[in-house]
């Protein structure tokens, strides 16, 4: 009887803890990637994670089916300056001229309808507004909402990032617009 009870508890717990997702890949920084863009020492690369199997491995959900495109953004700074990159200033430009803005990760979590683990994992993986200091390498996911029931293709799509270059002493700040192709391979 005791054994059966233990087994039931084990089954119950295994059911709760079934969120399995890989951590974000921080092994390849922006400057190591082939498809990248460099402007004034700011390096940006972007990668599509919407493909079904890949998405399941990293998010345990088919996010594209839920209406979201996960794009992995990698940023590096090889300059002496400091940059500020804000999520709201990043846009996904599809080749068919559709432009998408990144949504809040909370929206994706709600749609994915997951557990605390999922909530925590998605929140930890998401990209937030960041300062990028000299030598920094930052990584994070951006989530773009697919408009309506539209069938989308990420072939030839690009990410447009508007970054603020912080003013140095005696100099003026600058706004940089960087366009980088989204790696779909």
């Amino acid at each position, binding site marked *: 009887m005791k054994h059966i009870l233990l087994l039931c508890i084990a089954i119950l717990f295994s059911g709760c803890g079934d969120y399995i997702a890989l951590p974000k890949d921080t092994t390849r920084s922006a400057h190591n990637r*082939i*498809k990248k*863009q460099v402007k004034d020492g700011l390096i940006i690369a972007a990668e599509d994670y919407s493909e079904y199997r890949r998405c399941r491995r990293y998010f345990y959900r088919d996010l594209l089916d839920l209406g979201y495109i996960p794009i992995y953004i990698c940023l590096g700074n090889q300059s002496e300056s400091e940059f500020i990159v804000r999520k709201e200033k990043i846009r996904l*430009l599809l*080749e*068919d*001229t559709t432009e998408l803005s990144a949504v809040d990760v909370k929206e994706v979590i709600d749609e994915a309808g997951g557990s605390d683990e999922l909530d925590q994992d998605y929140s930890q993986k998401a990209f937030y507004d960041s300062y990028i200091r000299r030598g920094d390498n930052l990584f994070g996911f951006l989530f773009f909402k697919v408009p309506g029931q539209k069938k989308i293709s990420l*072939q*030839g799509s*690009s990410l447009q990032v508007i970054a603020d270059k912080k003013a140095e002493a005696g100099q003026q700040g600058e706004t940089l617009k960087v*366009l*980088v*192709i989204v790696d779909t391979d």
Partner: protein
Amino acid sequence: MKIVCLFLISACLLISCSSGPSIWETKYKQAVSADLAEQNEEAINLALEAIENKPDYYEAHILLANLYKKKKDWMKAEEAFEKASVLDPLKAETFLGIGESYLQMAAQKENEEEAEQDYRKGQYNFSKVLDLPKVSGVQLTHEEQFLALLGKGICLLERTLAEEARTFLKQSLELDIDNTDARFYNARLHEIGIGPNKQSFSEYKKILSQNPKHLKTLLAMGDFYYKLDQNNKDAIRTYYKSFAENGGISKRVNEWLDANPLAQPVAYEPGSQVSAPVTVTPQVKVCQTCGRIYPISKESSVCDHDGGDLIVQSE
């Protein structure tokens, strides 16, 4: 008797309808003739009349689009090609036409944001052409393939996506090694990659020797000298001036010419109506390994990028 009369009238009507060209065909043929006679406006009006009488007349839409293209009215050309593409979505010529129209419109825009959008629309249409064989089994002609590859490469390059442009520009050059635009954009791509260099410079020179009116090359040469040494105003002015005189439109070039108004005699090619750049032979330092070009004022005799020896040369 009445029935016989009615029958005869109907028969006559039927015969008149079935024999002889229809009004849209007549208008279309007249438009083609007007086009051949270089009467562009007349041809446009006739093509419009043909379309008015038969809105789904694909050939008339294409003719109209090409007439607008001749007139360099790129916005209307794009609209006409777009309508033709709705009538027949499997024709590469319509998407090539739309792509080219956007390329031309983008090139005329000073606003970077607007130009970027047009280049993206152009890129999308060139991609459609390249996807046609996969999507619908349509076989592209050699020329269609070439134009789509070159167009997509140019759009990507102008959108600053140089690495992605490389594949398409290289393939286009492989398809037509003598094409001036393909040669120019490959040389420009190389310059974007490593900066002013001997290979791009000599390619620009070759293009200009074949076509002294090639606007993009004239502008690139002016920019080349500008990047190399802003004080070399004679060389910069020569190319910028030739660019402007031959119909090139650029706000920054005009501003530079206004700010640097020194009179410079313009040389003319023998027997040519257009102005050609005068020979400017300033001295520069050229890396013997990678071909990068530096201004003569550079103190070091070693290339910054690969440590190659810098040799003083007259271009």
